């Protein structure tokens, strides 16, 4: 459950295809009464079930670990879960990363092509994520810019991002309220 591996990832493409249709070939389709249908003893199949068994303590512990790595104070998306489980989750995150890079690249191309007085379209990121100097600067690499954006975001949120999560900020807040 937790996470699933796409069959192509686990098996060769053809095996993936076969795995997906296995139950159909074996359990559906027509049977004719007068025909003999051999009993398939000891099915010698590559039934590679790569899915993680959900109801297992092992999975619970991994979930808990992933959850424990979340910063409950911050509005974050878990980046730790994919690392933990791999598979399509990691792939999805990889894709997101790639898209982000592509987007940055587009930004850069625009930076270069667009007349300087023309405003950048705002479809990509909220304005707050694009410091003015960043927009003007056409020299940095897309990856570098992305790193900086992340850093900027991190800085902005860092007061709440200290380790210790929930308990600490609350402890800080309380004295403030008392004052």
């Amino acid at each position, binding site marked *: 459950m*937790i996470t699933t591996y796409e069959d192509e990832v686990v098996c060769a493409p053809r095996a993936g295809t076969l795995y997906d*249709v296995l139950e159909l*070939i074996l359990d559906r*389709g*027509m049977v004719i009464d007068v025909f003999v249908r051999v009993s398939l003893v000891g099915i010698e199949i*590559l039934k590679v079930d790569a*899915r993680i068994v*959900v*109801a297992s303590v092992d999975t619970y512990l991994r979930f*808990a670990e992933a959850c424990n790595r979340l910063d409950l104070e911050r509005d974050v998306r878990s980046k730790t879960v994919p690392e933990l489980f791999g598979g399509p989750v990691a792939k999805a995150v990889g894709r997101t990363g790639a898209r982000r890079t592509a987007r940055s690249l587009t930004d850069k191309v625009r930076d270069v092509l667009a007349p300087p007085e023309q405003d950048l379209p705002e479809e990509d990121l909220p304005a707050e994520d694009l410091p003015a100097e960043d927009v003007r600067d056409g020299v940095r690499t897309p990856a570098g810019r992305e790193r900086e954006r992340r850093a900027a975001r991190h800085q902005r949120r860092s007061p709440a991002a200290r380790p210790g999560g929930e308990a600490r900020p609350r402890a800080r807040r309380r004295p403030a309220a008392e004052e």
Partner: protein
Amino acid sequence: MPTLAPPAVTGLGTLYVYGIAAAGVRAPRATGVAGSPVGLLTESGLCAAVSPAPERPRARRRDLLAHQAVLEELVAQGPVLPMRFAVLTPRPDALRAQLRSDAAHLKRQLDDIAGCVELNVKGTVVADCLAELVRRDEQLRTLALRARRRPGYDADVRLGEALAKAVRREARRAAREVLARLTPLAVRTADGPLDDGRVLSTSFLVRADDEPGFRREVAARARAHRDRLALGVTGPLPCYSFVEARPASRPAGR
């Protein structure tokens, strides 16, 4: 008209049956189960794709693929009633008799699936929404905080189990939504087995013309739910799920 009669068909002995189509199709060139050549046996306007049966049929990977490949070649030529894997007939004349007595019924089924393909959609649980669930769900949050304040095996197991349940519930909800969106695009549907991780397993009988639209919808749903449900489409397939398993109702019954 290809009245192909390879040794398999004329010879005595058990035949492996792949599927039934309208008479007039070309014999599949694909190699059959156990490496045997595939021939056609024609009777009453129908023909069955057959090959000599292996002595002990087993669901070996290459045999399953061969079964599938033969059917796919037939499907490319028109509607086919696919047999389940490892359906055998003791003698060619038994098969002929079957085709003859059941011709009307079989032809009606061929008409029913004409121009259609089977698309199988499976959905499995993805846990990328875990952070969101913890944020949203007060109970999960409480468990998570408790596990942090008093770390330990039991707390982690309790937390993990609650998370697993929540993630699965999300996936099931998404699966229901997907099903509701896809069903109107299909002629018929057939549900398959579900389990802990597999929350969607349904075959759709889709008009061939509607396949691109169907796939687009699946892709759109997959994007919408990608942090909780992984969707995959397999097909177009022979219509395994949309033929009556037992067409040979007793001759007197009709």
